[in-house]
């Protein structure tokens, strides 16, 4: 599956709020895009559309040229197995060992029996998992209990799990929102490097425009569910940036 993402006039409405309105977005394979905006802008919803976790109220979402709404459940599973979504709250299983959490990344491709074997019996030859752990920088924590890790380390385990999926795209949702600036840079740099090495499509949601500007060739600004701009950061005017992040006024809820 090629990692093309295409959103056409997508609106996502919930009973009490409209998360996204008439969004058009095209991401090509191997691109690195940063989605920026203030909290509540709809960044998470946007990312969740890309792996089918959220359904559009109107409009179409296409991954690899196929429309998600037209995929069979099996095809959808295959598509999801190829997309590495890293949740903001990580969603690891705290009382399992790190190795087991990382191995879970392959569940989409294992039979149930194979999965039971892989998870109940931490494999001695977990070479590929170690490889991913090395790439994110914490190989020595392979057999540690996940709940004994620091927040930053757990963040890396979540990334390792996504990488272990051998995905064609990486979708980290607000990976640095609760991290100090130095570590934030570290992590974003890691994500960008890995994606470049492996030719993954990278689509990160951030609320820090500085970070986006420094590492991404393309920045999509989101405010109140609408795309404010979609351009290389060097072309952005200060006025546009301010407008993106300013506090709400009455006219914003249009």
């Amino acid at each position, binding site marked *: 599956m090629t990692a093309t993402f295409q959103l056409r006039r997508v609106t996502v409405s919930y009973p009490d709020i409209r998360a996204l309105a008439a969004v058009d977005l095209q991401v090509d394979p191997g691109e690195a895009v940063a989605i920026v905006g203030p909290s509540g802008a709809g960044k998470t919803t946007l990312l969740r559309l890309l792996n089918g976790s959220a359904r559009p109220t109107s409009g179409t979402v296409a991954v690899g040229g196929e429309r998600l709404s037209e995929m069979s459940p099996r095809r959808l599973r295959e*598509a*999801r197995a190829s997309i590495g979504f890293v949740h903001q709250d990580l969603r*690891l*299983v705290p009382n399992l060992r790190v190795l087991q959490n990382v191995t*879970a990344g392959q*569940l*989409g491709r294992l039979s149930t029996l194979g999965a*039971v074997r892989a998870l109940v019996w931490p494999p001695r030859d977990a070479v590929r998992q170690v490889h991913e752990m090395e790439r994110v920088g914490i190989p020595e924590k392979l057999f540690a209990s996940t709940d004994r890790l620091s927040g930053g380390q757990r963040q890396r385990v979540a990334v390792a799990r996504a990488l272990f*999926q051998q995905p064609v795209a990486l979708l980290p949702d607000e990976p640095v929102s609760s991290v100090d600036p130095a570590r934030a840079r570290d992590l974003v740099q890691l994500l960008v490097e890995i994606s470049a090495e492996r030719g993954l499509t990278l689509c990160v949601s951030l609320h820090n425009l500085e970070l986006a500007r420094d590492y991404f060739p393309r920045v999509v600004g989101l405010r109140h569910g609408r795309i404010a701009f979609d351009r290389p950061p060097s072309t952005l005017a200060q006025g546009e940036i301010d407008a993106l992040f300013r506090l709400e006024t009455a006219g914003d809820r249009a």
Partner: protein
Amino acid sequence: MTAKTPSFSIGPRGWVLLSLLASAVWASVTLDLDVRRLVPTEGGWSVAAEFLARAVSPALTYEAAVVPAGTQPLLVKATEAARMTLAIAAAAMSLALVAGGTLGLCASTFWWRGTVRGVRRRFPFVVAYAGLRILIAVMRSVHELFWAVLLLAVFGLGNLTAVVAIAIPYTGVLAKVFSELIDEAPRDAGDALDGLGASRFQAFIFGVLPRALPDMGAYAFYRFECALRSSAILGFFGFPTLGYYVTASFENLHYGEVWSYLYVLFVLIALVDWWSGQLRRRLVA
């Protein structure tokens, strides 16, 4: 201008508390309890006094005047009774864990709520679910002594009867509690696994079940402690556990021996309680 008097509202908790106290009053009236009956009768006094006095001096050897030759020393017999109590409890818990675990997994709503859509297709699940819950409810509301009464009439006095008599209600309790723990476990990891292409079953086993497992284990261990008690009281029906010897000694008026057996039971339970606390410290994050 009049000052507003502060309003006092009895919240829901207050109402519950009040109804509890009111029922206690109703209960004492219904039972026709005479506080004077709290004072033992003539005969009762002597029994009580003698019995309570022996609390500080439990017997270390038999109190009978004549002890048949070849009888084991008292402490050995007490240990043996404790061993049988433990054995029956362990066997019963092993049955209850397997059966209760299976039933509990089946009785959780995880399977069909949310996946199977449409009233027509849900119907068989709902029926099966309701039937399962009724079965579990019946199993757990009959006390193990009553199960023993029923099973004794059929299977006689073998220890297997005791094991099954305990296993049945405990299966019911474990099934109920396990299913509740599974339903209440956080779903976030399961959702994430869903999102990376795992099947529903896989997401459950690897994302949701591990979250519930520590509490399930803690509760199962607590149940093991209760099983020791249930095993002990089955002795009243003749099974070779501590309860049997308590009654035998009491009826022979050997109160010191009674306290010995009670202390042995106390030590057994205190040990298991301590063990359970240690495990919980190490396993529940």
